């Protein structure tokens, strides 16, 4: 089967790229290895659409997405992606926390971001549910959150409507060069897909796929867990994080709270199917209740785990691979991929059609290591 562009990976990066390509009439095939679209980090994250706390090299991407895409995304995708731009509070309660938050804030201000340090009092003015434990916070009023599940499925839905061809359960094992160019994608079932450009956006799996054409990206799979509570009446719309990064999350339109969590134990967990640990949810509940005591009676209904692809320098690779013409890499998003996905999809579509990219991508070169 042929198309102008073959995308390996049906996560939010693959789906948003397919959407941008299909919108411009480019034929595209998306191959998803698992049974389900959006099966990796795309549906296993806290839904943050934030600039604060982000690596300065990634800031232009997210600032562009917030300014130009996120606001209109629900209309664009004919899907409620539940985007709220009501700010991000990153909370702290110790001097050490203050130092961490202050460092992040100063760096972001230098990049032109509207973010500042506030004290506990002001934090409680913004979010009255915060406990007295909170003594400092960074506050970025233009940050927000969205629903990663509907955003991912929305990109998929609209890309499909526009003619992108999705095939799931089609695990890519090899990229094959034809006359010096990466042209063919070979799957476990023996099928061959051919295109002018091949975009690999398969999270950690990308490492094995591109190694078949002699390329490596230094990254590790890291286990992250998420919990969801029952729905309650709306309380606040800010995105939340902490200086310790022990939990982060928000209340969704539906009324449930979605919190990403980190047990602090063994992030490089056993390979294979991501498995929840028996203690992470409890640890997160303690952290959440310390800052939000009024959530203590809310019931947790579900928790799940997933891999993120953590790059050696914690920012992604978004890059054409000149030494393998035709190959474009988009991986190593290191747990920050969701908020920038709308921009990354646009940029990848530009790379695939050999247009000048809207933003400079030189920081994300594959050969920077």
């Amino acid at each position, binding site marked *: 089967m042929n198309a102008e562009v073959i995308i390996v990976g049906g996560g939010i990066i693959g789906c948003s790229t397919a959407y941008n390509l299909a919108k411009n009439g480019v034929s595209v095939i998306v191959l998803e290895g698992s049974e389900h679209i959006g099966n990796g980090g795309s549906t296993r994250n806290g839904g943050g659409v934030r600039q604060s706390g982000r690596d300065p090299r990634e800031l232009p991407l997210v600032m562009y997405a917030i300014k130009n895409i996120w606001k209109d995304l629900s209309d664009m995708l004919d899907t409620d992606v539940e985007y709220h731009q009501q700010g991000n509070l990153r909370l702290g309660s110790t001097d050490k926390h203050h130092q961490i938050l202050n460092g992040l804030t100063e760096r972001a201000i230098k990049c032109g971001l509207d973010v500042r340090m506030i004290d506990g009092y002001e934090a409680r003015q913004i979010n009255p549910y915060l406990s007295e434990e909170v003594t400092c916070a960074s506050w970025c009023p233009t940050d927000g959150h969205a629903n990663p599940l509907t955003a991912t*499925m929305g990109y998929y839905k609209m890309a499909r409507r526009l003619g992108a061809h999705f095939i799931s359960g089609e695990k890519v094992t090899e990229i094959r060069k034809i006359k010096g160019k990466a042209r063919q994608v070979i799957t476990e079932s023996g099928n061959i897909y051919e295109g002018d450009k091949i975009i690999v956006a398969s999270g950690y799996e990308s490492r094995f796929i591109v190694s078949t054409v002699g390329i490596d990206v230094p990254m590790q799979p890291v286990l992250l867990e998420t919990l969801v509570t029952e729905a309650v009446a709306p309380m606040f719309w800010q995105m939340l994080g902490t200086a310790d990064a022990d939990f982060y999350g928000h209340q969704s339109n539906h009324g449930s709270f979605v919190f990403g969590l980190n047990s602090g134990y063994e992030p490089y967990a056993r390979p294979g199917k991501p498995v*929840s640990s028996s203690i992470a949810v409890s640890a997160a*509940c303690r952290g959440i209740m310390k800052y939000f005591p009024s959530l203590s009676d809310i019931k947790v209904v579900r928790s799940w785990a997933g891999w993120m692809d953590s790059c050696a320098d914690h920012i992604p690779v978004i890059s054409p691979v000149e030494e393998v013409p035709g190959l474009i890499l988009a991986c190593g998003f290191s747990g920050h991929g969701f908020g920038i996905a709308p921009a990354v999809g646009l940029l990848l579509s530009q790379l695939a059609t050999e247009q000048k990219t809207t933003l400079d991508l030189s920081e994300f070169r594959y050969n920077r290591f």
Partner: protein
Amino acid sequence: MNDRNRNIGEYIPADDDNIIVCRCEEITKGEIRRAVHDGMFTLTEIRRYLRTGMGLCQGQTCTKLVKSIVAKELGIRPSDLEPATGRAPMRPIEMYILAQDGEDMK
């Protein structure tokens, strides 16, 4: 291999489209049928897109119902559709109770 471009026909509105199927999340049969035509071909995708089975009962009541609706729309057997993964906690549990965890581990 699940080709999302295969022809499953048009979505044709039905009289009973307004029946609620997932009671916890109040999702109707029509919403589920439309989601299938929008490309949600697996129960996991339906769940991610519509929230079916994500409420307090965690799909204990509606999984089978959703399964038969989706299977019918796709023209496949219900047993060809894998239910969404079981997740802890098996029953909804208050945060303050989960937080009181670990005392016996010391």
